[in-house]
């Protein structure tokens, strides 16, 4: 088991290095760079000599391999450099933007999971076939709603028309309601869809008939036997949902005007703010690695058969 964990950490480090290298090379390959975009802007009215001096100051005139090495060395020491566009250290940007995004993403995921389960149970247990069918088609509808539009509609209805929650100067609780909903609805949809499918499949298996034959109620079977077996595919896509959460956060944060990683990512991309982007790539890669590790560790708890496989690998 220790070896397995060491292996996983080794893999994680390789993933991080590859992600860093790939993003570094891609950013170099793009036309233009942050310094060009910011200082070549006619607004600044700088002469070519002045821009050349600024380049030297930022170390952008150094050869590629030296910039690569420098950046890694600085990263290892916990320094992510300066955001050319915002004019503050990247560390400061992350310190202000990471916690709100994590909170938004965690709550969004939580609400999405709750919604997905409610919907899946309702779609499976509802009394009439037509109602079950109707509920089962809801996720497809929810997936096709653009997050951007959803956010604006929620604001227009709940904040501007019904005046239930202010969007400007809300308290800490109010500030979360609409953004969390905006983020949760599109994520709940695929989760619910998979859960419904998975519940259907498991229900069709022989052991369910056996349990029913022994006199268990439909609901009881669902809780005790089916759910546990249906959870696995849901857990597997949790890793993928992390990406969805980040993407949703970009839109949600922009629409609601709240700070967060999504918003600084969007700005860093449009300004090719290399230092910021590389820090974000590393963070995102780290997030994926941790979530996948967690999924791998939790899965055997749900399905003991997987434990043997993991053991055999190690």
């Amino acid at each position: 088991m220790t070896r397995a964990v060491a292996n996983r950490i080794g893999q994680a480090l390789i993933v991080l290095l590859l992600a860093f290298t790939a993003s570094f090379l891609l950013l170099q390959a793009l036309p233009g760079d942050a310094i060009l975009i910011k200082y070549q802007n006619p607004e600044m009215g700088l002469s070519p000599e002045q821009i050349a001096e600024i380049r030297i100051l930022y170390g952008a005139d150094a050869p590629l391999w030296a910039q690569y090495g420098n950046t890694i060395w600085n990263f290892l020491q916990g320094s992510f450099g300066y955001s050319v566009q915002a004019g503050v250290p990247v560390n400061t940007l992350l310190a202000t933007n990471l916690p709100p995004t994590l909170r938004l993403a965690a709550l969004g995921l939580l609400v999405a999971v709750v919604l997905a389960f409610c919907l899946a149970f309702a779609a499976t247990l509802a009394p009439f076939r037509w109602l079950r069918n109707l509920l089962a088609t809801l996720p497809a509808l929810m997936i096709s709603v653009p997050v951007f539009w959803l956010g604006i509609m929620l604001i227009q209805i709940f904040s501007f028309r019904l005046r239930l929650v202010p969007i400007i100067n809300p308290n800490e609780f109010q500030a979360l309601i609409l953004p969390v909903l905006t983020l949760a609805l599109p994520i709940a949809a695929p989760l619910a869809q998979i859960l419904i499918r998975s519940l259907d499949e498991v229900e069709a298996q022989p052991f369910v008939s056996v349990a029913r034959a022994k006199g268990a109620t439909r609901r009881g079977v669902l809780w005790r036997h089916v759910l546990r077996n249906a959870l696995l595919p849901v857990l597997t896509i949790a890793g993928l949902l992390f990406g969805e959460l980040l993407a949703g956060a970009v839109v949600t944060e922009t629409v609601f005007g709240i700070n967060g990683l999504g918003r600084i990512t969007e700005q860093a991309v449009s300004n090719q703010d290399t230092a910021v982007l590389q820090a974000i790539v590393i963070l995102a890669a780290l997030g994926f690695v941790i979530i996948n590790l967690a999924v791998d560790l939790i899965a055997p708890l749900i399905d003991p058969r997987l434990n043997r496989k993991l053991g055999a690998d190690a």
Partner: protein
Amino acid sequence: MAQEAPVQGGTLVYLEQQPHTNLYPPAGGFYPNSGILNQITDKLTWQNPETLEIEPWIAESWEINADATQYTFKLRQGVTFSDGTPLDAEAVAKNFDVFGLGDKELGYPIAEAINNYDHSEVVDPQTVKFFFKAPAPGFLQATSVIGSGLVATSVLAQPYNELGDATKIIGSGAFVVESEVLGQSLNLKAREDYAWGPVNLEHQGRAYLDAIQYIVTPEDSVRIGALLAGQADFIRQIQAYDEPQVEAQGYLIHSASTRGVNNNAVFRPENPLVSDLRVRQALTAATNTDEIVQTIYSAHYPKASSVIAATALGYVDLHDKLAFDQDRAKAMLDEAGWVQGADGIREKDGQKLELSVYESLPQPQSRAMFQLLSQQWAQVGVKLNVLAGDAGSAAVDRLDPLKTPVVSAMVGRADPDVIKSNFYPTNRDALLQKGGLNAAATWEDPALNELLLAIASEPDNAKRLELTGEAQVYLLDQAYVIPIFEEPQVFAGAPYVNGISFDAVARPSFYNTWLAPR
């Protein structure tokens, strides 16, 4: 409501479209930066937005030598920065040394508004003298612009990289930065002991407002919705098509002119497709600015009638040179040898008359404007592609006259120097001349450059304005630019927000602002 007595107190909730960036005052050209800097910093002089005269502010009086190479300013007594340090000759000298010369070690670029700067001398604690390498007649006005906001010397001792943090900007203004959530919101509070507003303002003493809250709200519909729902008091950047719904509900549109070089389509004559004067003149004649202004903009966007705005210093009315005349356009293109091909696009020597332009994100509805222009040019057989590349490609391609034969350019500054700023090769270099931003450029117009330099260094004001007129005539005779409209900054405010004022280039000042009881 104007006759009511101002009420003291309250917080103005101001929704801003974009977060501020570096707050080094010379970087105040960026609208969000200037909206903050104007409240927290003071300037040596105050440019009266109505008369455009330069009036005393932190400087009580000044003397300029005959050839405008030496400026002596006498400073007001008792002015302090918000950290308690005195705003004296020492501080002013340090500010302008950095503005005029930059600081390589700390990374400060040179301010655009200041030309030919040599050095400063502290004569006594209240007197400072500036020396210039060549005549600098624009310097007096340059001491009044956002970019010359005075900051405590401790600010300029920090690396340029880190000045995006607004709490580090210590000025002597009527408001002080209290706190900020980077990229999201910024809180200013009034300075109780403020007693040095521009002398010619009726209002003296501290600001009426207790506080200003800036909240970055990128989404247009959310900004407008929040204003109309009573959650905000004042918002920046209203699109022309949103103006009617704001006014319909009794809210006010505030628009102010940026009073400089207009929103122009500028040609890069190095590109062989537009190097022929007749082609550029034909495209000028093919441009229907009336249609553009009426279709895309509103009454707050005056149609341009010269290179600079009608409200700018030295403006001459040249609308005769800008007449819309499709027949003339076609005739000139025929004369220049461009023949309509099978697809309707003109050709010459196997080459199509196909141009491209990048939309300019900071300018209002730039994309829609160029698309309409593209339709107008298509009627005379010229194709204009409107590109929306990412910032990186756009920044690179704009430096290549072959990729972008047309570019959108404007500058706001209420001094004739503004024309030089836009066109001179070592400034913004809109035409991409030799010696400017494009290292590979070979084209230049020495006559134009000589004229621009003369504007920036002519000490006689009357002559200077005359030269400014000549430059406008020259630019249009050469058809280097097609003026489209005079760019305003458009804001909207709740009806109870009084005393909003704008400086000479449309930057808001909230020193006089007060909130009537609702």
